[in-house]
């Protein structure tokens, strides 16, 4: 299922840096617009997200970055009156094509939310539930399979050492930062290709934020991560690519270093230097 399209010419908004090395595009937006009733939230966004990279979306509140993020796993469609135009292509397939099942989309594209929202279940079941209901667990050797899976995901989310002796405890008994890592572990259990993170640190203290950022760094390469953040320093620290949004428009998209050091757009510069936002 790897996209065979040569990608060098398919990067309209990315500045070409040096040689036209083949870029593995996992998610592509083509003229994506989102509106709630009369109110337009996102206007005609073109964007290509590279596989294995960390891409951050920044911009002031109400700029449409979270709205756009939620179109990537079809979490927008529970909002009454929402309308999505344009195409969102995952490995070349339109997520909004008529024969695409949103449940299937969310299996491949996981999500971590702003406020940690573990299930009011044991730590173990928080992770096991997704694979179980999706029929990913073989019937024979079920327990052993799940034990392995839980350990692997908790290790993957850098939480194993803290919780390995109390997997039966309720996930809500953990601290806020641990809960958020549990939510990341829960997303990993589905073996998604992309993980969407909607301001995952905004409810956390600096120490927990640090741990999540370290974790994002560890997940880099194995997963494609798209992170919405209010915190520009965070975007600068964790991401390879940064997209700056302003009132529903994608103003600038490029390598994080370049965008923060030498923004091409005046509005980007004003925002990252703190002149508004």
């Amino acid at each position, binding site marked *: 299922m790897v996209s065979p399209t040569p990608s060098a010419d398919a990067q309209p908004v990315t500045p070409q840096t040096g040689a036209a090395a083949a870029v593995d595009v996992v998610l592509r937006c083509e003229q994506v617009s989102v509106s709630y009733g009369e109110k337009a939230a996102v206007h005609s966004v073109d964007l290509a997200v590279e596989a294995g990279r960390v891409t951050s979306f920044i911009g002031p509140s109400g700029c449409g970055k979270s709205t756009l993020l939620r179109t990537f796993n079809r979490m927008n469609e529970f909002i009454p009156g929402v309308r999505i135009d344009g195409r969102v292509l995952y490995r070349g397939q339109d997520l909004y094509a008529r024969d695409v099942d949103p*449940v*299937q989309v969310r299996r491949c594209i996981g999500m971590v939310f702003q406020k940690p929202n573990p299930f*009011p279940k044991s730590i173990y079941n928080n992770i096991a539930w997704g694979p179980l209901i999706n029929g990913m667990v073989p019937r024979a050797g079920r327990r052993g399979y799940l034990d392995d899976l839980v350990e692997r995901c908790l290790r993957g989310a850098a939480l194993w050492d803290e919780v390995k002796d109390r997997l039966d405890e309720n996930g809500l008994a953990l601290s806020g930062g641990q809960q958020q890592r549990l939510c990341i572990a*829960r997303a990993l259990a589905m073996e998604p290709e992309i993980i969407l993170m909607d301001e995952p640190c905004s409810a956390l203290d600096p120490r927990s934020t640090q741990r999540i950022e370290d974790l994002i760094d560890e997940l880099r390469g194995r997963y494609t991560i798209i992170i919405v953040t209010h915190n520009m320093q965070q975007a600068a620290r964790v991401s390879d690519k940064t997209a700056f949004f302003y009132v529903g428009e994608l103003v600038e998209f490029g390598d994080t270093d370049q965008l923060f050091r030498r923004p091409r757009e005046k509005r980007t510069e004003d925002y990252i230097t703190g002149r508004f936002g």
Partner: protein
Amino acid sequence: MTTLAAADSHLRGRHTKGRLFSWLLGAMTCFGIVMLLLLLVQVLRQGASWLRPEFLTRVASRVPEKAGVLPALVGSIYTIVITALFAVPVGVAAAIYLEEFAPRNRLTRIIEVNIANLAGVPAIIYGLLGLALFVRLLHLQRSLVSGALTLGILVLPVIIIASREAIRAVPSSLRQAALAVGATRWQTVWHHVLPAALPGVLTSVILALSRAIGEAAPLIVIGASAYVPFCPRKLTDSFTALPIQIFTWAGLPDPKFQNVAAAGIIVLLALLLTMNAAAVIIRQRAGSKLKW
């Protein structure tokens, strides 16, 4: 500089007002409780000495000393069980549908408004409906099942409205968490929303059934019998229920039957208290596992 020690007269006035209101509110609360206590004391004084074990095992009689409550008690318990079996699944299912699946359009809004209105319709009207629908149209006779279904329809709106409140109170972050790991709407509802809403749903169910068990009017309309010397065995048997039996006793000329009626009231109250206690226990069991 403002001195902190001596409060000025305006502030003193505000404090007085505050105290006055808290007294007033307390007095109102006491009024309600005192009225209830008076009722309870009155009933206990009249009926307690008549509440002997035989009272629970005998059938109704012309002689006050020989009168018993058994057919009415059994009738009430059977009725409430059948009512619950009918109204709880239908009511909770309707609540789930309206809250989680129904499209938000004009039709659902009309349905919602009408359910709210139905909750306010007097019980006797439901009795007429039951008479026309179950007794006449469906030929269920003046039977246990007719009475139970009528009470079921009577409490359905209450169950639907209160269950919806409970389902709506489940944070949407929980739904999103489940959907984000590839759950279907139904899996989300079944595994997460319903367990989280269960305490609230159970409360609504018990409240509704408590209302049903105390209703006499609709049962009288559909023709529950005043004198039934046997316990119902089949769904189609004629039956009586505690409120009807109490109503009948209270209307008899022999003053001793007032005491018999009081004893009947105590039995009904005991039944109600048991149901409410069960609800509290179930709710605490279910609630202790869920916190956020």
